[in-house]
């Protein structure tokens, strides 16, 4: 028998206490292990040291494989605040060349950053050049808590093509927030301008990761799970530009002392052969720690050297626009190649007068293009807008006109692979209804000669030249010829046909040929080639802008070019000779001695922009 006593029921109390304790503990385990992820994260941040392995950025070469942008090692100084014990601040500051005040300010800045942890290395200084780095490395052991991280820095082989190449800079908070995949971390670099920006994803590659196990003393104990979760960095892809650097060099040389842009396109592919904008700047200065300071200075310059005028400048296209008007007129049956209009030193109709220079009258289309007769194209537009047989209303005619323009690449961004492209301006019926209320063909007649409300970028003008060269289609212009192990976006290989037929383009070609053989741009003739061209002289508030577009040779064209010189006067003054030199350089690979002299003379002709409102 068992011992029974008065208190034997207390066994249940004691058993209950034991069950209670264990129950509470199991509930506690539940909350610790299953209901919260914080402990796992803390454990990982304890034990894992995540080293980011940076890929090398892709190289950039021109179409002839000469290297334009490459990488050079540079170094970052990192600081782990918690390990910063017994630092000789003065000695440190001397070594890295900053003042103690800088040091204090930088430390404060670091501590205020989002996601700051005093246990993790923070970026203290970036882009230390090699010489400074060597000095610092010798003394590193004295500066506990500081560390060095090897990165790369962009280097430019020449001072050319700043607007195309662009540059890289430290990511902004906005860049970090905008990246959908959360790729960027503070201190990373990102393409800011040019192809560095538009091909950022291809150029940057993919960062790699190495997870190391770190014990409580910070010692590395090998790879986590033998490197199962490690990832090697994927180097960035190299880019080959379609730019011909010799051509680019000539273009930039010719733009010296002028505001404006030169664009050349290979018509059959849409590849941009050169794209210069004046004034320009030296991309080599935009690297290293001084970038942001220089960037600020350039932005403040009234001549706006940062502006890529080739795609961001919106100019009245002037007489280069007449080609589009001829094509619309022909396609819509408003005119035939044989249609002649009178020109008595201009367009005179219902009291309206729009001047022209002296030439024979009446004049059919091809010579009208050749001499750039204003009256001819005024009549054409007038007859189109006033045609109530073909169009029910003036609005319908205007919309038809606008659709033609859009199909030729005007009024919208072409989609060049550079950031910041502007769309230009092509008015439509709605626009005039709103702005003018009551309007007729005569109130908008100036758009027929590329004046008035119409604006276009030099790239769009060059694209027109390329379209005419192709007899009716264009491929969206682009500066990248190929991506290593990659393909170009299909928009850069697709032909866009305009609304005008090939046979009308043949007429336009004939007109542009006439302009060179016996018209406004006889200065564009290059011995041995059948050059086609069209001048433009765009009126504006100041001195006229000088424009030219052309292509050569007439059959199987290899280059289309557009030149736009702000306040350069007649198209023949700057536009034609510059355009000719660009085409000659590209077609022959060099300039003839006479042309060389012409280039030197153009290079030294600077336009005085003081007094012009910018």
């Amino acid at each position, binding site marked *: 028998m068992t011992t029974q006593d008065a208190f034997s029921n207390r066994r249940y109390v004691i058993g209950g206490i*034991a069950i209670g304790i264990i129950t509470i*503990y199991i509930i506690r385990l539940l909350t610790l*292990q299953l209901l919260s992820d914080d402990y*796992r994260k803390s454990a990982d941040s304890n*034990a894992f040291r995540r080293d980011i392995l940076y890929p090398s950025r892709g190289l950039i070469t021109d179409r002839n494989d000469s290297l334009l942008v490459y990488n050079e090692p540079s170094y970052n100084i990192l600081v782990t605040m918690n390990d910063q014990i017994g630092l000789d601040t003065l000695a440190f500051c001397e070594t890295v060349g900053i003042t103690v005040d800088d040091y204090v300010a930088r430390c404060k800045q670091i501590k205020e950053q989002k996601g700051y942890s005093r246990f993790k290395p923070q970026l203290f200084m970036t882009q230390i050049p090699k010489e400074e780095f060597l000095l610092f490395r010798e003394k590193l052991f004295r500066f506990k808590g500081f560390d060095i991280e090897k990165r790369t820095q962009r280097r430019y082989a020449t001072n050319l093509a700043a607007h195309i190449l662009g540059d890289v800079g430290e990511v902004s908070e906005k860049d970090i927030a905008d990246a959908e995949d959360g790729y960027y971390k503070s201190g990373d670099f990102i393409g800011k301008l040019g192809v560095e920006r538009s091909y950022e994803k291809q150029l940057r590659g993919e960062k790699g990761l190495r997870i190391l196990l770190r014990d409580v003393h910070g010692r590395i*104990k090998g790879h986590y799970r033998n490197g199962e979760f490690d990832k090697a960095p994927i180097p960035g892809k190299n880019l080959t530009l379609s730019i011909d650097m010799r051509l680019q060099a000539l273009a930039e040389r010719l733009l010296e002392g002028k505001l404006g842009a030169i664009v050349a396109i290979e018509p059959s592919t849409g590849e941009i052969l050169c794209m210069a904008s004046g004034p320009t700047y030296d991309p080599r200065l935009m690297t290293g720690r001084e970038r942001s300071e220089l960037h600020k200075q350039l932005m403040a310059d009234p001549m706006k050297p940062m502006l890529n005028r080739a795609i961001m400048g919106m100019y009245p296209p002037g007489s280069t626009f007449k080609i589009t008007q001829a094509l619309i007129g022909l396609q819509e049956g408003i005119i035939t190649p044989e249609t002649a209009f009178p020109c008595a030193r201009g367009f005179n109709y219902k009291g309206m007068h729009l001047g022209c220079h002296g030439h024979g009258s009446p004049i059919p289309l091809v010579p009208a293009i050749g001499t750039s007769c204003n009256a001819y194209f005024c009549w054409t537009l007038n007859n189109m807008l006033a045609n109530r047989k073909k169009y029910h209303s003036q609005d319908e005619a205007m919309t038809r006109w606008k659709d033609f323009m859009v199909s030729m690449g005007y009024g919208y961004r072409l989609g060049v692979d550079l950031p910041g492209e502007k769309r230009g301006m092509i008015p439509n019926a709605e626009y005039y209804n709103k702005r003018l209320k009551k309007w007729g063909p005569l109130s908008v007649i100036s758009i027929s000669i590329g004046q008035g409300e119409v604006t276009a970028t030099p790239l769009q003008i060059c694209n027109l030249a390329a379209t005419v060269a192709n007899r009716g289609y264009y491929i969206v212009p682009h500066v990248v010829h190929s991506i290593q192990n990659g393909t170009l976006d299909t928009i850069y290989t697709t032909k866009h046909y305009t609304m005008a037929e090939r046979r009308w383009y043949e007429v336009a070609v004939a007109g542009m040929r006439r302009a060179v053989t016996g018209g406004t741009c006889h200065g564009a003739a290059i011995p041995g080639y059948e050059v086609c061209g069209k001048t433009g002289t765009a009126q504006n508030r100041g001195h006229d802008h000088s424009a030219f577009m052309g292509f050569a040779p007439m059959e199987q064209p290899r280059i289309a070019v557009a030149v736009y010189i702000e306040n350069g006067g007649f198209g023949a003054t700057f536009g034609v000779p510059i355009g000719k030199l660009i085409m000659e350089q590209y077609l022959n690979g060099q300039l003839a001695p006479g042309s060389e002299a012409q280039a030197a003379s153009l290079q030294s002709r600077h336009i005085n922009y003081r007094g012009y409102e910018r």
Partner: protein
Amino acid sequence: MRDRLRHENPAFRADWVIIMLYLLLICAGWVSICGASHEIGDTDFFSWGTRSGKQLVWMGCSLGLGLFLLMIDEKYFDLFAEVFYYLMLIVLIITPFIAKDIKGSRSWISLGSVSLQPAEFAKCATALVVAKLVGQYGFMLSDMRNLLKAVGFVLLPLGLIVMQKETGGALVFLSFFLMFYREGMPGAILFTAAAAVVYFVVGIRFSEEIFPGTSAVSGQFMVLLIIWLFVCGLVRVYLPHTPHARRLFWTGLAVNAAAYLTSYFIKSYDVVWVQIVWTVLMAAYLIWHGLGERLRPYYLIAAFGVCSAAFLFSADFALDSLAEHQQGRVRVLLGMEVKEGLDYNVRQSKIAIGSGGLEGKGFMNGTQTKLKYVPEQETDFIFCTVGEEQGFIGSSLVLLLFLALILRLIWLAERQDTAFGRVYGYCVMSILLFHVFINVGMVMGLTPVIGIPLPFFSYGGSSLWGFTLMLFIFLRLDAGCKMRRRL
């Protein structure tokens, strides 16, 4: 012949449930030690140079010890209880003089390459001697003199171990009060002790906050409410069939509510003063009725109320009387302070356990323990390794094994035919429960950081042998009982 052997040999009559649980626990403990003491990629668990290898030897010795204990005659345990006890006391007295200072405590005696901690064995000796005392015929613990005598046997080694600066090991002796409770110690004593802990925790935890709507200190306000409720409860239990409990409850509710609402809506003041007056009034009411009815509970409950209030106002003083680092631990435990270092251990152990998730990271894959983030991970914080590598499933299984062991011990203790056996069984069970309660609570941040090992898990020969000794003596007693009763 074989049957006779089975019946006569106590080793075959030992409770197999306990033995299975014991074997499971020490094996799980060994796996945890492997996980805690080895670096990633290590596979050498058996060589003498490693902790897991040594623990394997200690485990072997323990099994030998257990077998030996099952073989010897049970009467020796009864006979030599005092001898063991006084020998143990002598060892405890001389230990601080011959022991080396290890982390401020002088409790380890070196015997060649092996160190022993006598305190681990003192528990067993004390359990034997107390069991013998309480098991005497006609010994009633409800008698205050007997109780004091028994408590004396417990406090003597406790004091000696405190002198070795091994406070954790000393506190374990408080677990004997659970056995005393089973053997008839008035429940009021246990209740008073529990109430004191509640007052202390609540009072200190909220001692730096002002209760909203008043200008009273939160801790005092809340404790005085608790005192009022405790008094009502005690009156209800000890003075049934009287209207006093109801009266005290409703009047108290009215007084407290009126005091609080006045402070909240009219003018903020220190409500505590009203509560103190109310507590005194309750005491006076009880004494007044006590004078009329001549019943002791009236006086005792009145004294409980007043003493509770007094204790509350001396709790701060009590905290101040603790050593600096112990004060810190109390504050950290109560969540009042976050101090580098002091809460580091607990924070890291919580991280380790918490990162285990449902299934754990797997054997030898725990990063926190491998990389030494958790301190003392093979000894006091061994449960972290279980939590991290075996996850919720593994660690709650371990807790359930302990619970099974404890409940089985209660079951076996209750079926003993001698009071000696029963009392001893409860001693073993209480000590185990206390160790599990404090150790597991500590690594999960629920109880103060008191450095005591987790039975069968923590690395070390002394602790393992101490528990084996206690457990197998009880198994031998139980086997004897079974043989006598021809079960």
